[in-house]
């Protein structure tokens, strides 16, 4: 038996096909989900992909968050279904309050596209178990609104509970508080990050490395062993 991992397409999603490809390369069964369809088609986990859903108009992720598919995802995520939000997907997760905080315009006010080094700060989430604690990985980063922010109490709580999952290394690319690149909810099933693991799953493409593969193999193992 293999696991079914859904990838949602919102209007303006861009990295949905890449995420489906990454799921497939990891050996899981990719399932395309549509924003208007409440039905998750028996998937075991969901990826909210990168892109500019609704053009990032109003705020990144703000309009998508109200789509029919998100109603089901919010409900099931609260019940423990693993959800990964990449970039725009992370923005959707904060807008839906599945993850705390909010995403703001990069402090330098430019779109930034680069190979980004990260440290895996927590390898106990549903999406990071295939990494070593403290492992350094290189995956692409590309966004306009990547500056994670939250009030001090929330940040202290995230830090104290080990819920900061990824931290930027070698320079903070967007002014994100405490170099935070990704976080998880208290249960560890919902993870959001700005950089793009789905662009680092083939040796030839993107950064030329495969450091992003671990996200998809982690979830596969977790689901198959469950």
């Amino acid at each position, binding site marked *: 038996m293999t696991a079914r991992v859904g990838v949602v397409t919102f209007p303006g999603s861009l990295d949905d096909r890449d995420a489906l490809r990454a799921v497939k390369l990891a050996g899981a069964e990719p399932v395309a989900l549509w924003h208007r369809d409440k039905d998750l088609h028996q998937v075991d986990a969901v990826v909210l992909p990168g892109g500019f859903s609704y053009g990032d108009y109003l705020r990144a992720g*703000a309009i998508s968050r109200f789509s029919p598919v998100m109603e089901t995802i919010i409900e099931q995520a609260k019940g423990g279904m693993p959800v990964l939000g990449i970039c725009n997907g992370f923005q959707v997760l904060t807008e839906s309050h599945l993850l705390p905080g*909010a995403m703001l315009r990069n*402090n330098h*006010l430019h779109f930034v596209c680069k190979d980004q080094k990260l440290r895996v700060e927590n390898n106990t989430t549903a999406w990071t178990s295939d990494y070593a604690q403290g492992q350094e990985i290189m995956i692409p980063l590309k966004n306009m609104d990547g500056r994670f922010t*939250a009030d001090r109490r929330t940040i202290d709580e995230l830090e104290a509970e080990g819920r900061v999952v990824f931290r930027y290394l070698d320079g903070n690319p967007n002014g994100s508080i405490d170099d935070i690149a990704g976080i998880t909810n208290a249960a560890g099933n919902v993870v959001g990050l700005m950089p793009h693991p789905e662009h680092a799953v083939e040796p030839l493409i993107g950064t030329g490395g495969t450091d992003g593969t671990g996200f998809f193999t982690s979830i596969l193992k977790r689901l198959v062993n469950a």
Partner: protein
Amino acid sequence: MARVVVDVMLKPEILDPQGQAVQRALPRLGFEGIADVRQGKRFELEVEGPVDEAALARIHQAAETFLANTVIEDFVVRVEESQ
């Protein structure tokens, strides 16, 4: 038709690099004496029908749940005469 304006600004404690960029540029352009600049959004809503308490309450709710992200933003709703 009546116009309702919703102003959305980042909360004071949140860093506003857009506002800062403007503030830093102003003296270079020869505009002195501006101590601080914040940049936010302004929404102009053209409302069908009367802008009564009920309508304003609905717009307030739309602002709270949708137009503003209250984790980082504050908002104000006010009625403007239509042109």
